[in-house]
């Protein structure tokens, strides 16, 4: 395989095994663990291939321990692959060349790089010096990003006194100071409240539009993925499970939609059988599962046949669908 110039990131048959040793409980187990350690390889990522074009926003989905973080760290050069190939912008990430490092950035939701006792501004100027930015360049850049992130005087308050949301936004600012063109975000909204999550999300989407930066993102919050990522890559037990756009994932996962109806008068369940599978019937409330292609007909028939107060159509929640998918363990 090689290499369409339009591909920014090429991952080819990538695998990573970790060598681990198990310890039996108790003193005897400890002694055995010390003197006669049995190690074996545990696959974290197995034979994964995909390509990403410049400017894409790609979400990595998977349960805990699925291998998302390992995959992300192999792409930014923190973990050496056991086999296979990673190419990011023509660089081999694991060599961590200066030119490569200046193009990328990593944000980890559960780890911070800002100096705890000082205002973010101090850490920002340290980062600027490390990346060789002049004070002027740094100032312009900080102002620009601070405005996009809606950060003001928080930047001159000690980090330890900031809220988690303010801290995360400052972390993101620090990570973007050097105008990276590839962003690796590992759970960037972890622990944030709904509003703060939404602000981080809208910032990332705006940043992507303004700069054309490529964003690779893992998140536990489905809302992050649905709001930001047209394309998702699902990892299950270290293997590539699905790679494609989010909509068709939802469609293929669930060819039906939920139609909830509130009736003026109670009706018997038999009357609804011809429209679709009855999920729920409760006095005046009916919930039907209707396949997408029949949806418009069904809705118009319902409206003519019954006295309807309220009608609501929705997708089954995607995280529920993906959860089911992982449990089923089927490849689409």
């Amino acid at each position, binding site marked *: 395989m090689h290499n369409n110039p339009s591909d920014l990131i090429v991952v080819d048959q990538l695998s990573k095994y970790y060598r681990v040793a198990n310890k039996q409980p108790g003193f005897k187990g400890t002694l055995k663990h010390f003197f006669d350690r049995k190690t074996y390889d545990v696959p974290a990522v197995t034979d994964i291939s995909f390509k990403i074009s410049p400017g894409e926003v790609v979400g990595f989905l998977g349960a805990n321990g699925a291998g998302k973080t390992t995959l992300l760290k192999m792409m930014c050069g923190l973990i050496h692959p056991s086999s296979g190939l990673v190419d990011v912008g023509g660089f081999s990430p694991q060599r961590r060349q200066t030119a490569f490092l200046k193009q990328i950035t990593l944000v980890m939701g559960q780890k911070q790089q800002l100096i705890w006792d000082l205002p973010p501004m*101090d850490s920002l100027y340290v980062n600027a010096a490390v990346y060789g930015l002049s004070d002027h360049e740094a100032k312009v850049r900080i102002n620009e990003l601070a405005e996009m992130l809606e950060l003001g005087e928080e930047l001159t308050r000690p980090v330890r006194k900031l809220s988690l949301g303010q801290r995360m936004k400052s972390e993101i600012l620090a990570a973007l100071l050097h105008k990276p063109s590839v962003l690796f975000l590992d759970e960037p909204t972890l622990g944030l409240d709904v509003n703060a999550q939404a602000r981080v999300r809208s910032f990332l989407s705006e940043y992507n539009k303004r700069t054309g930066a490529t964003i690779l993102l893992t998140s536990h919050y489905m809302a992050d993925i649905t709001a930001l990522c047209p394309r998702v890559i699902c990892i299950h037990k270290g293997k590539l499970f699905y790679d494609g756009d989010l909509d068709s994932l939802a469609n293929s996962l669930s060819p039906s939609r939920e139609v909830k109806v509130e009736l003026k008068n109670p009706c018997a369940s038999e009357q609804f059988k011809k429209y679709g599978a009855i999920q729920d019937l409760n006095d005046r409330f009916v919930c039907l599962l209707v396949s997408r292609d029949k949806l418009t007909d069904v809705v118009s028939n319902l409206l003519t046949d019954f006295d309807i107060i309220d009608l609501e159509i929705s997708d089954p929640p995607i995280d529920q669908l993906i959860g089911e998918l992982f449990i089923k363990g089927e490849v689409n």
Partner: protein
Amino acid sequence: MQRYFKTIRLFWSTAFASQLEYQLNFLIELLAMLGTLLGSVFILSLFFTGGRQLGDWTWESALVIQGVYTFLDGLTNALLRPNLTEIVNYVREGTLDYVLLKPIDSQFWLSVKKFSFAGLPEIILGLSIVFWAAIQSGSTFSSYSLFVFIISLLIGFIILYSVWFLIAASSIWFVKTWNATEVLRALLAAGRYPISAYPVILRFIFTLVLPVAFLTTFPAEAILGELKFNILFFGLILSSLFFIFSRLFWKFALKHYTSASS
């Protein structure tokens, strides 16, 4: 190169600012340092009451060694301890990842990120003791002996740094490294007294195996104009080897880290 200097400047000014965030703590650190210093001069003065000698060193020239020790101890408190004991935390908390993705030498970052200003008075005092005691012992320094003194201090510091860094870097495997600080403190403390005050076997060990002599005795001899050139030469080679080894070891450790971490 300029980028590295600017980075150091910002590292240390932020370190200074962080320390001043906790004023009381800073004062206590200064007091503790003064206490240690007074104690060590007192112990040394005990050795010499009644005209006894340490090896063939007089009170004044032994005081030079005490001065060099104080200087190195100050440098340790200012630079080595704050930085190198922190490496364990970088590994344990996973923030080493951020350091590794910076376009700057990671060993440089980890070695100079912090600077504790509580070490500065000791550094100044140490140098003052060295020069005062050297004058008292009747030595006249030339620019040559000053130059050799600076070089031999550098040799001592690089050796101490390299050994410490090696131990700290091993935390990549052990994560919670044993208390390396104490081991190295003891090593440095052995250099408080002239190397010739120790039995022959220890003298040999302290010169060749654990190069304690290079930390204090040789710089003191340098300022007193007694250091033999071949020792200086040997010291240069030895310290370069230590330093190169620490870099190679770090590269090796990182290879392990990056192939094992998650």
